[in-house]
């Protein structure tokens, strides 16, 4: 018992050796000779999906594997974020905005041979909106009152009130059209109508897809024979795999600080694009002291967004002033509503009765962006006499149960991935506990029209309300840090919706 012993070889040592081995591995791979044009691609992702059915669970990783590759919708969005027809060839909207008549495409079959027609479309939508539905965006279907199928190529949706965003919502991964025979098993063996069919899923490692030879759209058929999604959470391992050529593309590379290591690389390019990832520090608006608007405004003024972006995300990011990104329609730059001004912030805190300081706890998930942003905010708040304790809360399980569902928190920080989700502030219950009737009224107006310009005006108003009320601290939009092979073409540079659309991807000769 006298000798000291070290049975608990520290985890960091293990990781260190692992990355050392990976770095060594790159030296060999670089020598690999280029063969004939490749017909397969390996895409890297940081997060493995929890299942492969985007219509029954929320994680965006599900859609990033399946959407537009395996599954398609009545409508879709293109790489610029515009709504386009897909399984619905065209549509007509009645003047009162209450009846949508879709003309469905003929000659479409699922990967298992099932023929797509209006009854299948009805099945898919009924499944998504029904009582027992666990669809992550179920509320998108709530204004649908009935679904009629006058003939196999016609689908009629009757609405209870005008829903201007319906066509856009129908394009979401969660609105994917699933087959009547295969829907039950989509979680493990997804069957859709898309240009790729599912081959295999080795849990913890990869999902493999193969070209669908019977794809309905001959012009839009996949150019690749095979596609593999590989899952790798460690940024060091991601970088090593890219440099070794084990992975052809990492559309969402996890570590901004490693981006510069790819600069000037002979085979890899870096592509910085837009996303919808809004990093916001939500506050429990129902709890003291955050029920006082002035406290929230003061905290907002304590934050120098540009410095925060520099420190937390190596300068990759765009400051935002409300829950809206510069690529969304009708964006207004509101970062000037409560700009960085520690003196004013202090005065406002004193006015609210917290002149002697204030202490609270932030429940921050373990992700690098959240931890780093929290530490910087902690230092910035200290400047105005506010003490913020950081409590690391495991994401997703514990965060979802404590913060998202339980609303048992004071402040938290997370990146909201869903595009155009400003309506979360109108939801009740939602973890911000915001509840502003004026805001809700503005959002209702958005749905009354399907005219994009008019919607944009209302969205502008909604942004201004949030920027003034500061129910959450609006920090920045994360960019899409893409790293991929120079010869790989056709990947989306921007991400109007979380996705990895591979239809148009090919290798340049």
């Amino acid at each position, binding site marked *: 018992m*006298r000798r*000291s012993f*070290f049975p*608990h070889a520290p*985890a*960091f040592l293990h990781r260190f050796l692992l990355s050392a081995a990976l770095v060594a591995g790159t030296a060999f791979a670089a020598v690999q000779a280029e063969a004939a044009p490749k017909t397969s691609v390996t895409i890297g992702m940081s997060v493995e999906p929890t299942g492969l059915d985007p219509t029954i669970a929320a994680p965006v990783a599900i859609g990033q594997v399946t959407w537009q590759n395996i599954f398609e919708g009545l409508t879709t969005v293109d790489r610029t974020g515009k709504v386009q027809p897909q399984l619905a060839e065209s549509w007509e909207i009645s003047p009162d905005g209450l009846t949508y008549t879709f003309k469905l495409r003929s000659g479409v079959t699922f990967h298992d041979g099932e023929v797509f027609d209006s009854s299948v479309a009805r099945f898919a939508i009924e499944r998504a909106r029904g009582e027992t539905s666990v669809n992550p965006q179920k509320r998108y279907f709530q204004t649908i009152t009935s679904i009629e199928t006058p003939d196999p190529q016609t689908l009629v949706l009757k609405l209870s009130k005008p829903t201007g965003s319906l066509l856009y919502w129908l394009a979401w991964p969660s609105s994917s059209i699933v087959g009547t025979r295969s829907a039950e098993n989509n979680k493990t063996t997804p069957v859709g109508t898309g240009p790729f069919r599912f081959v295999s899923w080795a849990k913890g490692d990869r999902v493999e897809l193969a070209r669908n030879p019977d794809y309905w759209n001959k012009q839009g058929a996949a150019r690749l024979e095979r596609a593999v999604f590989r899952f790798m959470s460690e*940024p060091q391992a991601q970088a090593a795999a890219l440099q070794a050529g084990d992975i052809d593309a990492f559309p969402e590379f996890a570590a901004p600080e490693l981006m510069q*290591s790819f600069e000037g690389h002979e085979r890899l390019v870096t592509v910085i694009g837009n996303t919808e990832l809004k990093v916001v520090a939500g506050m429990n608006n129902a709890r003291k002291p955050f029920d006082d608007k002035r406290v929230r405004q003061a905290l907002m003024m304590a934050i120098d967004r540009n410095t925060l972006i520099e420190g937390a995300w190596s300068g990759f990011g765009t400051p935002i002033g409300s829950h809206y990104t510069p690529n969304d329609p009708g964006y207004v730059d509101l970062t000037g509503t409560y700009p960085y001004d520690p003196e004013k912030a202090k005065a406002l805190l004193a006015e609210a009765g917290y002149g002697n300081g204030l202490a609270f706890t932030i429940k921050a998930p373990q992700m690098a962006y959240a931890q780093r942003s929290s530490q910087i905010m*902690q230092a910035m708040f200290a400047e105005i006499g506010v003490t913020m304790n950081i409590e*690391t809360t495991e994401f997703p399980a514990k965060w979802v149960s404590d913060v998202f569902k339980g609303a048992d928190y004071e402040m938290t920080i997370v990146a909201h991935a869903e595009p155009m989700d400003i309506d979360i502030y109108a939801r009740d219950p939602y973890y911000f506990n915001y509840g502003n009737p004026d805001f809700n009224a503005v959002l209702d107006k958005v749905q009354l029209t399907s005219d994009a310009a008019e919607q944009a005006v209302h969205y502008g108003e909604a942004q201004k309300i949030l920027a003034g009320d500061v129910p959450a601290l609006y920090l920045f939009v994360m960019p899409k840090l893409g790293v991929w092979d120079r010869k790989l073409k056709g990947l989306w540079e921007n991400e109007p919706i979380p996705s990895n659309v591979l239809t148009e991807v090919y290798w340049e000769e």
Partner: protein
Amino acid sequence: MRAGLRRPILAAGLLLTAGLVSLAVLSLFWTPRPPGQMQIAMRLKPPFEQGLLGTDQFGRDVASMLMSGAWNSLSTAMAAVALGASLGCALGLGAAVWRGWAQALVLRGCDIVFAVPPILSAMMLAAFLGPGRGTAIIAIATFMVPVFARLTLGGARQIWSRPYVEAAIGMGRPPWRITFLHVLPNIADQIIVQATIQLGLAILTEAGLSFLGLGMAPPAPTWGRMLADAQTFLGPAPWLAILPGLAILLSVLGFSLLGDGLRDLLDPRAS
């Protein structure tokens, strides 16, 4: 100096630990810059370019953080060892007095605690208490207890069978007096040696726990979290990982050498 040459292990151990302790204590009064102060414009500057040891991803001074981290590491480790050693010694001495089922209970208890890795018990504790310094101290102390319990039990049983102790028993001295007058002083050197060696282990475990986010909460700098934060900066800023790694290495080495040296000094027969 000559003593140092005769006992190079002890001298090296003393040198390293004295350096660590003095830096840790100094950090309470002075660091080159406030360890938590961020200067984001000055981020990721290499050693000598900005401060003695460069800056981290928030522009904090690495030298100051290492000094302050030394105190956080050392004080946590000392508290844990003190707690674990007193509990363990009490159990061991008690078991030596009562023998029989009490001894069996203590020994089996030790086996059970040994079977659970400290990282695991810390994670379970953190789930109840929330992560923090207290959790780290309790978790580290928990796996120190059996080490000291077994050590003192073994040592104490030897002492209890010595003739002068048997004489004391014959004179009707109560067991607690014998324990404190005869048993404890005779095994104190073993306990001190073990405590020194365990300090190094405690520092290593503390670093492991704070690496996993189960140690002291930020902004308090800890070596473990510095390492964790440095992971993705290995390429652009290798000093961020090397320096705290070196600090951990040298402290663990220091206490290990000091323990070995002390043992040689206190118990010449062992070597």
